Each structure stands twice: as C-alpha cells, then as structure tokens.
C-alpha cells in the first residue's frame, strides 16, 4: 500500500514547496516558482487519489471493514510512558496526556482530501495566469503552498491537537493572503480583522479541547468516538453540551457564522484566487469538518444540535439578504459563501451530516468556479469590481460567461446541476428531521434558496448582460483570460455539472452513493437521532409520520420553483440594466439602506466592542471592557511582569554586592591582602642592587666557612 503508508507525504509536498519559496523564492524565475508550487499540489492530488483508492480497497476487506485507517508517526506532546498524567473529571481515574503526529483516513477525511487537493490544484494553475503581472509572485505561491500544507494537516490529523495546528496554520495563511497587498490600508485592516475575529472562535475551540481531554482522557478522534458510542455518557450530558457548544464557537469563527461572520466579506481584499481557495472552497469549511468529525459528541448534545441548526439557518438567510443589494462582485459572492455555509450548518444541526458534507463538496466546485470567474471578469475589466460599471460582457469573454452561468445554475438549485442535489437534500432532511420540529427552519432555508437564485442571477445579468456601462478605455481593454485561467474554469464547470450525480437521491431512482460512502462515519449517529426523534414524538403524543415519496417530490418541486422564480425576478429587473438602473428593493429605502449597509453590524460592533464609534457623545466600547482589559493588562499583568523583573533586579543587586564585597573582598582579596602585609618585612631585604646580593652571599659563604673551620 504505497500511497496509504506514505500518506504523510501529502501535506509534506506543499510544505516543501513553501520552504523552497521562503528560502530561495526571491532568486527564482517565475516559471520555476510556478513549476515547483503548482507541481507540488499536482503531485499531492495524484497521491491523494492513490491513497483514497487504496483506502477504499483496504476498508472493504472483511478484517478492516469500514474501519478508519490510522498511522502515527511519532508522539509529539506528552509521552506514551505515562509520565505526564492528569486526573479526569470523576476525580479518580487518570489519563496520560498524549498528542500524536498521526494521520487518519476515513471516508470523511477522504472527501475533504480529494476536493481540497483537486480544487487547490486547479486554483494554483489559475493563479499562474492571474498573478503573472503581480509583484511578490514567489511570496504568493509560498503562502498558497503553506496554506495547502496547513489545510492538509487539518484534514488528515488524527487528534484535536494536530487538527488545531492545521486550524491555526490556515488562519495564519488566511491572514497573510488577505493582507497580500499590504501597502493598501484596507487590506491590512481586513487581514487584522480576520485574524482577531478568528481568535475569538479559536478560544472557544481550545476550551472545548480542554473539556474533551478532561472528560474523555484522550484527544484522538477514534478514542473520543468510541467512548461517545460506549453508552456511558447520557444524551444531554451537560459537560458534553458545553464542550460541543465551545467547539461550535470555534467553527463559527472559522466558518463565518453569526455572530462571527464579519471577517469573511472583508477578506475579499485578498487576491481573487485566494478568495476562491481559502474563503470559499476549503478553509471556511474547516468548521464544518470539525463539527462533522465530532458528530458522535454532537449527537449526545441535542441542545448543541439545535443551536447549530438555528445559527446555520439564521446565518443563511441573513447573509443572503445582504447579498441581494451588494454592488461589489466579490462581496456578493462572499455573502453567498456565508449563506451557503449556513446551509451546511443547518444540515449538520438537523443531523443530516452526510447532506451537509455533500453540500460542502458540491459548493467547493461551484463557488470556486464563481470566484475564479469573478477573477477572470476583474482581470478583463482592468481591476474593476463594481458591477454597476460592468454589463454586456458575455460576448467579449464567452468562456468565463458560460462557466459562470453553469455555476450560477448550480448554486441556484436548478436540476441537474450539483447544487440542486445537495441543497434539496438539506431542505428535505430539515423538513423530515425530528418529526418536523424544524419546519420553521425549512421555511427559512426555502426563502434563502429564493434569495440565492435572485442575487446570483442579478450578478450574472449585471455583469454579463444589459448595456455596457464601463468607461471607453476599460471597454477597449476587455479580453478573454489566458488558457491557464480558462482551463480550470472549464474543469470546475464540468465538476459543477456532474458532481451532484454522486448523491442522486433514492426517490429519483438513484442510489445516493455519496451518503453510502460516508455511512461508516455517520450511520450510527443517524440511527441515534432517529430514535431520539421518535421518542420525542411519542412523548408529544404524535403519531409517527410517514415520509412519503410524494412529499419529497413536492418539496423538490418547490425548491426548483424557488430557483426559477428567483431567476425570473432577476431577469425582469436587470435584463436591460443601463447606466442609472434602479434596484427593485430601492422602492423601500429603509430596507434597501439597511441591507446595503449590512444591517449596520460592523458599525454596531465598532460601537459595542471596539469603541471606535460614538453615538452622540457616549462611547460604549465593549461596555468599558476593552479599556478595562487594557488597564488590567497594562497595570496588573504588566505590573506583575515588572514586579517579577524588579524582584529579579533586587536579588541580582544583592547577589552582586555579596559577590563584590564578600566573595571577592573577604574570600579572594582577603588572603591576598594578608599575604601582602605579611610579606612587607621580607620585602625590605630586596633592594634590587645586585652587588648587595653578592655581598650578602659572600658574607654568608664566609660565615659558613668560619663556622665549619672553627667549629
């Protein structure tokens, strides 16, 4: 099993590329940089394909049936000799703290592995064309490769600690790449914002990890899952609920959910391939991966599941509504990403883990395609991102137009494109889960689907149709992008068209191979959830509902209808958009302004938390918490630090005094002074006059002679 045994090579390949870039990148030719960095990802992708293929063979043998493949390279933190132990929550049993550098391959990580390396490979190739005329070429590719390394570590980790390493690594790369144009203040501000908001989430994740270590005595996924399955923890256990909620805080930060989504729209300051790779297809799905990875825990905490579902649904409709009126082509896509991530969390929250993962999978293709298409549009428009200044591009850049059109159909949920299958699966699962208690969330999700179709077709009509609204100079320069950019667009378009077929539902005569592939990871949880739902129904005195295929067909029809209606509305409003076109929502100015200003959330955060904004004369600023923590930091914490420094200096002074006067003075110089004093009389006999010495010698000799002669 060549590939499976050397799975650690997959993250190491991009790490090698990144190291080479950071050490020697400045001196390398652009062609060499592209060859090394893109090449590393291509090899990693092929390697990943091989590893997953070997894994599926391995896991279908009877002795390893449905088992995750795990390989531990070495123990990174703690020891396996049991020296570093701590007491668990019951106060009696102990566990040895241990975090491995170990890799885990199971169906869940396989899916992430494949689409991260696959989409990553296409985006690397695209970047060769997109970044060709930019400065810092090697830096860009170095960061991209470092990102791939971190992301692959995150995916393949076999324990929470190593996952956290990757988690922080991708956060760092996100920061570096958002601030890639560091000479632009807005970019460096956006980078800071992303980093700081992510820290809040990371704090939650860390605390959750501590809880896991304290409650389960291990941080390995396999151990935690086994213990969670063992039945010794009751459903609704408060500690597990707290743990999962804290983990979800981490997921909220990384995957841009309410109330921590604010960094993602600003992250669009980075180069467009970065937006496609990090802020649409891969990194932002890390939160979903982590929640899906912890599914055994979440199932034990129904409260957390409800929270996840509600937060996801609210984020979905909230971000979609902002997306309706944004004018920056990348911002529309950013809010769309936030909204789609909300869908995924909705799916996880209602227990439809495989549906959520399926949406991650399809979304990776069509959203990466949309972003890369937007990048191609911006490239053609000489850097213009405002859709108000575009229009009628579909004839000038046909490849970009048609590929983006496919992606738009996919995200709008028009069959048979990929988004239809995954989104429909989520809505169907929301409708049926827990005997219909979540039907309100289905309505939220449904309206989100409607809005999604509207804002995506609005983007298409404003950019590619209507009257040209750009300046003549810009219009003159419009050109289709080079092959290295259109190639990935075409490949992603093909994926957006066909990826959905993997999850062809049973009701349409398919076999839902995607869910079947994930069964080893999620099957048990699905069963537990079904039993919970049934118990809840019985308790509420309801009859068990029959999920008939006719209901499913009806819902399917409704969601397709939502897509078509949204398309129609956008077609009606923007088909002939000319200079000074009117937004239909602008008919209600308060609503329009609220949406255009993103519900004033940033302003609110500035007022409540950072204190940069005042209302009237009052400055709230975290209810004084910011100042209070700054004061605490500068006085108490720094005071302690200074105090420690002062004590050190004091003891140093004393010991130097002791050394100077007692050790040196009494101990070392003392005997010397004594010897000097005692030697004083002896020195009187030393004149330095050689004839005196000769005289004394002669006298002595004479004395001896007289003594021996006359004795």
């Amino acid at each position, binding site marked *: 099993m060549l590939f499976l045994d050397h799975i650690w090579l997959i993250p190491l390949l991009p790490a090698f590329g990144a190291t080479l870039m950071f050490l020697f990148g400045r001196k390398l030719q652009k062609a060499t940089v592209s060859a090394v960095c893109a090449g590393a990802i291509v090899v990693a992708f092929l390697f990943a394909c091989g590893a997953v293929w070997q894994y599926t063979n391995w896991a279908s043998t009877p002795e390893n049936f449905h088992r995750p493949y795990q390989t531990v390279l070495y123990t990174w933190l703690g020891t396996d000799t049991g020296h570093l132990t701590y007491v668990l929550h019951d106060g009696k049993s102990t566990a040895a703290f241990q975090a491995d550098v170990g890799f885990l391959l199971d169906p869940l990580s396989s899916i992430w592995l494949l689409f991260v390396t696959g989409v990553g490979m296409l985006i690397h190739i695209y970047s060769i064309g997109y970044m060709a005329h930019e400065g810092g070429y090697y830096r860009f590719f170095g960061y991209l490769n470092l990102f791939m390394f971190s992301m692959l570590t995150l995916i393949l980790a076999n324990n929470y600690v190593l996952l956290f390493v990757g988690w922080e690594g991708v956060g760092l790369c996100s920061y570096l790449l958002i601030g890639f144009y560091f000479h632009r203040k807005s970019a460096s501000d956006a980078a800071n914002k992303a980093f700081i908001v992510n820290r809040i989430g990371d704090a939650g994740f860390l605390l959750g990890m501590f809880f896991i270590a304290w409650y389960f005595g291990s941080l390995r996924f396999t151990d935690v899952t086994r213990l969670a399955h063992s039945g010794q923890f009751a459903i609704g256990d408060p500690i597990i609920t707290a743990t999962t909620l804290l983990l979800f805080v981490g997921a909220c930060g990384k995957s841009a959910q309410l109330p921590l989504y604010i960094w993602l729209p600003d992250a669009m300051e980075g180069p467009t391939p970065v937006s496609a790779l990090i802020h649409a297809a891969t990194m932002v799905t890390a939160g979903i991966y982590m929640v899906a990875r912890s599914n055994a825990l979440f199932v034990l905490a129904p409260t957390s599941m409800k929270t996840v579902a509600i937060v996801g649904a609210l984020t979905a409709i909230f971000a979609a509504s902002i997306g309706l009126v944004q004018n920056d082509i990348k911002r529309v896509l950013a809010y769309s990403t936030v909204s789609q991530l909300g869908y995924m969390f909705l799916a996880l929250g209602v227990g439809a883990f495989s549906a959520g993962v399926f949406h991650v999978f399809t979304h990776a293709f069509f959203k990466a395609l949309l972003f890369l298409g937007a990048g191609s549009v911006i490239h053609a428009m000489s850097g213009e991102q405002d859709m108000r200044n575009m229009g009628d591009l579909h004839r000038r850049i046909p490849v970009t137009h048609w590929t983006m059109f496919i992606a738009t159909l996919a995200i709008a949920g028009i069959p048979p494109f990929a988004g239809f299958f995954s989104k429909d699966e989520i809505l169907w699962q929301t409708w049926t889960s827990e005997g219909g208690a979540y039907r309100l969330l289905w309505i939220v999700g449904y309206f989100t689907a409607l809005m999604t179709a509207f804002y995506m077709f609005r983007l298409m009509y404003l950019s590619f149709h209507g009257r040209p609204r750009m300046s003549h100079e810009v219009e003159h320069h419009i050109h289709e992008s080079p092959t290295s950019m259109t190639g990935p667009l075409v490949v992603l378009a093909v994926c957006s068209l066909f990826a959905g077929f993997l999850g062809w539902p049973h009701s349409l005569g398919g076999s839902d191979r995607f869910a079947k592939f994930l069964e080893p990871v999620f099957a048990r949880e699905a069963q537990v959830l079904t039993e919970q739902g049934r118990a809840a129904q019985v308790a509420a005195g309801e009859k068990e509902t029959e999920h008939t295929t006719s209901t499913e067909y009806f819902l399917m029809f409704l969601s397709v209808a939502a897509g078509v209606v949204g398309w129609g509305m956008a077609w009606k409003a923007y088909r002939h958009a000319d200079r000074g076109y009117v937004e239909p929502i602008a008919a209600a100015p308060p609503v329009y302004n609220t949406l255009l200003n993103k519900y004033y959330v940033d302003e609110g955060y500035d007022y409540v938390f950072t204190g940069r904004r005042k209302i009237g004369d009052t400055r709230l600023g975290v209810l004084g918490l910011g100042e209070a923590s700054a004061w605490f930091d500068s006085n108490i914490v720094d005071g302690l630090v200074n105090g420690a420094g002062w004590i050190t200096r004091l003891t140093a002074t004393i010991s130097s005094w002791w050394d100077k006067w007692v050790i040196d003075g009494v101990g070392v110089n003392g005997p010397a002074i004594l010897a000097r004093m005692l030697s004083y009389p002896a020195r009187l006999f*030393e004149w*330095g*006059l050689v*004839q005196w010495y000769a*005289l004394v010698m*002669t006298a002595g000799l004479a004395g001896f002679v007289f003594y021996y002669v006359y004795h």
Partner: protein
Amino acid sequence: MDAMLHISTLHYLVLGAALFLLGVIGVLTRRNVVVVLMSIELILNAVNLNLVAFSRYWGELHGQVFAIFVITDAAAEAAVGLGILIAFFRNKETVNVDEVNLLKW
C-alpha cells in the same frame, strides 16, 4: 736558599686566594659593569690556579682538564655578559650597576 726558591703548592694557593679576594672585592665594590665582569674573570682564574696547583701536586691531569673547561666557560660567560651589557647600555645610556635595580618587589 734552595728551599726558599722552591715554589711549593702553598705559594700557588696563597696567590690563588689573593686573586680570589681581589676579584670578590672588585665585584662587590666597583660600580662599572665592565670592571665587575673583569673581576669575575679574576675569580675564575683564581679557581683555575687552584685546580692547576692541585693537579701538579697530585701528578694527575684531571685538574688541568677541568681548568681548560673553566676557561671555555669563562669565554662563553664573557660573551653573554658583554651582550647583556650592550643591551643594557642601549636602554639606559649607562654602565653603572646601581642603576640596575628593577628586580625587586
């Protein structure tokens, strides 16, 4: 008369002792380094005289051989001593031994 004219070993020894004393007094009292070196030669020659006198008295050659060694030694010593003397003169512009008093505490 014969006995008077006969030069016995005692005569040699007395002459040697006188030479030795002269040398010692010269070394101890003269301030000029050259004269001190010459006085040292006197002392050495007094010793040589003794060696030769006892060699003659015993009828053996050991003492004379030894005297030749001492002469050689004296030549070497004079060479080294004069070398030091010249170096000393170049530094101090003097040959007075009293000026050479650095070797003390």
